[in-house]
Every structure is written in structure tokens, then in C-alpha cells.
């Protein structure tokens, strides 16, 4: 595991997700509207990469392409070193809404996602139980999701994505619907869990602080049609401190990203 850290920092670890020249347009009012204009980016093994951009910059569209729900008009998507353009079933996913199935217990929600990823039913149930215990949710494992608070539902949703044996985890604004305090708690929790597990993550957020706190690298996207405006390496060491936002470099980077987003929104 410690190898991964140094390798990802050095930039030579295996590339888990690679997008090359992704283009996508939709027809609206009988005219094609370009949404993604030649997006190229990558996520290395054990790397936490964040996409940040103005709302409506096509981040969700990009996720649907990576998930294989839609096909890009141009470009290729490689996951785990293989061309998977338009193929489903190569990523695990955590959406903005927890999206737990109301008729399944918390444990069954986790386990059923694992069986979709190819695990046997018994193995999936055992893994779900073991990990719910580990993150302190053992006593609600048998409950229906509605008894859980929003933050707890998102923990279950994250666990479900973490345990799926897939090359890349895609997290689509997972904390956007939470209040500020719960959100800060969830960021610290996710950071701790992720730094233990070191999965390859592609994360979408609107929050610059969130991006700087969690990520190894950040891609700043322009407004639609989206292009990569800048790639930013986040210089803070791992394991990352919860009060990293107090560092002068943090403030400088935050201003830099804010300025980029302002300039693209103003045009």
C-alpha cells in the first residue's frame, strides 16, 4: 500500500482510468449542442482525482459515459488498461442521493451491490456484515434505510461503492445534499477510510475546499462545452490533516481555482 502512495505521487503507477479526447453533444431544439469538447484525463492506481467546474459543465454526462450508460461521440475510455468505451460494469458508483433500496435492509443494500459485481451471495453478506461492524453501523445493519440519518445513509452508500471490486470508484457530488457540519464530518470520515484503502477515485464536487482537502489532483473544467482548463497537483502530504485548510498554500490554491472558475463563468 505504501508503494502506491509513493508511485502515485511520482506519477508512474498504473493508469486505472484514462479518457482521451472525449466529445459529446446533445440535440436540443433540433440543433446539436456540444457538452464535452475533447476531455482528456486520467486516474492512476490509488489516486484521488477530483473534477471541479461550474454547474452545467457536463460532469454528470462525463460520469454517464464512464459508466457506459451512454457512448461518447468521439474519443476513447480505457478502464484497467482495456478499451471499455460504451461498456457497463467497470466502475462502482456513489450518487448524490444515497439511492439505497427502501425495501432492503442496510446490510442487504450493501450485499446486493456486491453480488452485481460478481461476488457469491454468502461472500457478499459476510463482507457487508464485517464492514458495517468496522464503520460502526453494525447495530443498524438489519434496519431499513429510512431509519438512518442522511449522513449515515451516505456512509452506507460509500461503503457499497468501496467494497465493489471494480477498477475505479466514481463519486458524483456525494455530500452536496448534506448540511455543513455533517458534510465536514463526512469528509473527514471518507478521508480516513480512503487513506486506509487507497482505491482509485474520480470525484465530482462544486466545493473548492472539498476538492483541495480530499484530492491528489484536480481537473478544473470550463463551462459548457467543457474542456480541461487546468490540472492542479495538490501538494499536501498524506495522511492529510483535517486542518489542512489553514495552510497558506491551501488558501493560494483556493484563490487560483476560484479565479479560473470566475473567468470561465464570466465569458
Amino acid at each position, binding site marked *: 500500500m505504501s508503494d502506491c502512495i509513493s508511485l502515485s505521487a511520482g506519477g508512474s503507477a498504473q493508469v486505472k482510468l484514462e479518457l482521451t479526447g472525449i466529445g459529446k453533444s446533445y440535440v436540443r431544439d433540433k440543433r446539436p449542442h456540444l457538452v464535452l469538447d475533447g476531455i482528456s484525463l486520467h486516474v492512476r492506481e490509488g489516486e484521488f482525482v477530483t473534477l471541479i467546474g461550474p454547474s452545467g459543465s457536463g460532469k454528470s454526462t462525463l*460520469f*454517464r459515459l464512464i*459508466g*457506459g*450508460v451512454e457512448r461518447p461521440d468521439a474519443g476513447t475510455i480505457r478502464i484497467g488498461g482495456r478499451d471499455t468505451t460504451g461498456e*457497463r*460494469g*467497470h*466502475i*462502482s*458508483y456513489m*450518487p448524490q*442521493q*444515497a*439511492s*439505497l*433500496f*427502501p*425495501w432492503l435492509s442496510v446490510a442487504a443494500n450493501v450485499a*446486493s*451491490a456486491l453480488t*452485481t*459485481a460478481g461476488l457469491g451471495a454468502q461472500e457478499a453478506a459476510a463482507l457487508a456484515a464485517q464492514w458495517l461492524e468496522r464503520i460502526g453501523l453494525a447495530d443498524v445493519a438489519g434496519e*431499513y*434505510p*429510512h*431509519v*438512518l*440519518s*442522511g*449522513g449515515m*445513509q451516505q456512509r452506507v452508500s460509500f461503503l457499497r461503492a468501496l467494497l*465493489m471490486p471494480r477498477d475505479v470508484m*466514481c463519486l458524483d457530488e456525494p455530500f452536496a*445534499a*448534506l*448540511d455543513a457540519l455533517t458534510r465536514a464530518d463526512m469528509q473527514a470520515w471518507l478521508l480516513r477510510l480512503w487513506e486506509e484503502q487507497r482505491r482509485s477515485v474520480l470525484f465530482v464536487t462544486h466545493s473548492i475546499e472539498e476538492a483541495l482537502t480530499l484530492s491528489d489532483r484536480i481537473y478544473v473544467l470550463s463551462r459548457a462545452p467543457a474542456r480541461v482548463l487546468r490540472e492542479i497537483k495538490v501538494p499536501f502530504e498524506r495522511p492529510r490533516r483535517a486542518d489542512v485548510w489553514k495552510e497558506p498554500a491551501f488558501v493560494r490554491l483556493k484563490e487560483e481555482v476560484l479565479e479560473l472558475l470566475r473567468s470561465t463563468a464570466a465569458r
Partner: protein
Amino acid sequence: MASRTLLQRFWLPAGALALLVLVWQLICKLGGVDPWILPAPSAIAHNMWDDSSRLWSQVWFTLRLALKGIGLGIVIGVAAALLFHLIPGVRAALSPIIIITQNIPLIALGPLLIVWFGFGLLPKLILLVLVCFFPIAWSMLSGLGQAEPHLREYLAMIGASRWEVLWRLELPASLPSFFTGLKLTATYSITAVIVAEWLGSSEGIGHYLVLKSKGYDTPGVFSAIACIVALALLFYGAAALLERLAIRWRPGRQAAQGGRSA
């Protein structure tokens, strides 16, 4: 809160019903209404008591026939809903035909079925199934299509198969609609089974009704009606009970969506 609900849900309707029966009784006794026109509730109860063993055997026959019809109706209704849902084009092609079958009056269809299939069990079952399958198929079909979009999107993103989407999402999501259909079916099935027995049977509460009606035995007719109403309530109650046993997550559905701010 709970006691208020119990008052509203049970004691108010029960009290209104009791009052109705009391007024009926008083009108018959004090108003001097001829018992051949409208028998008093007490006279009906007396008649039911006297004829109880015969009524029981007739009700039992009707109950079994209705259960056979509902059982087949459920199987065919669910199968039809799945077929319509899973195979595009089938719905568009067959909907008009199915709606036509629902618009033919039972009174017209019954004699035809007897001409075609005789006086046995088969024509009665066909009539029953035609009535029973429709509410289930139609409600469930809408339920299958109304599964929550964000859950559908989640399953698509993790690469779930069509079969998994059906099994994990669409079928559980359609259960509330299925039970809405089942409760309708439970009520309609009693009407249908009475018509079926009326048209051609030598047994059942529908047959009993015909006999009493032709003999101008008004207390007998009301006894049959009381049994039919009791059967309909029993079936509806059974369907509602099954629903509560099967759908235990429903109280939290709203909370599951609203709980994100907690």
C-alpha cells in the same frame, strides 16, 4: 394520536352502520312495513340462523370458486404485466383487445360462455379470471414503470443486467401497485362469482339467491346479500392484511427521501 385514529377508522363507521340498522329496524317495526317488501334486520338474522347450515355450505362453495378465480387471476395478471413491461410492442398490440374484454357486460358474456363450454367449472372460471386479472395487470404494469429514476440510474451506472433491474428494483417497486390491484380484484371477484353462479350453477350463494328471489322469499334474498357482503369484506380485509405483511418498508418511503437533511 393512535386513539383518535382508532376512533376515526373503526368506531365512527361502525357506529354509523349500527345506527342505520337501528333506524331500519324501527321503520319496519313501527312503520308497519310488510316483511315481504322489506324484512326487519331481526327477521333477516332469524332467517339466517334457521337456514345456517345450508347458507354455510353455499358460502363455502362460493368461497372456493372465488379463490380459484382470484388465484388464476393473480397468476395471469402478473404474467401479463411482466409480458407487457418486458417486451416492447406487446402492450400497444394487445391493449385494445384487453380493454374490449373489460367492456363486455358480464351478463352478456356469461350465457355465451355457457353455450361454448357447458355448465361445468370452466365457463365460470373463465368469467372470473377475465374480471380478476385486469386490475392486477393494469396496476402492476404502471407500478413496474414508475420505479424511482435515481435508483434506476444507480443500477445502470454499476452495470446491473436487465434481469437485476427487474428483480431488485421494478418488482419490489411495483408491490404497492400490485396490492392496489389485488384489493380491487378481491372486491370485483365476489360480484363476478355471484353472476357466474346466477347464470348456471346448482350450488353457491349466487344460486341460493336465484332460488330465494324466484320464490319471493325476501328474508332469504337479504340473507344471501348479507353473506355476499361479508365475503366481499373478508376478501378485501385479507388482501389489505397481506399488503401490510408484504410491504413493511412503506412507512419510511417519505422519510427515506426527506431524511437527507437530518
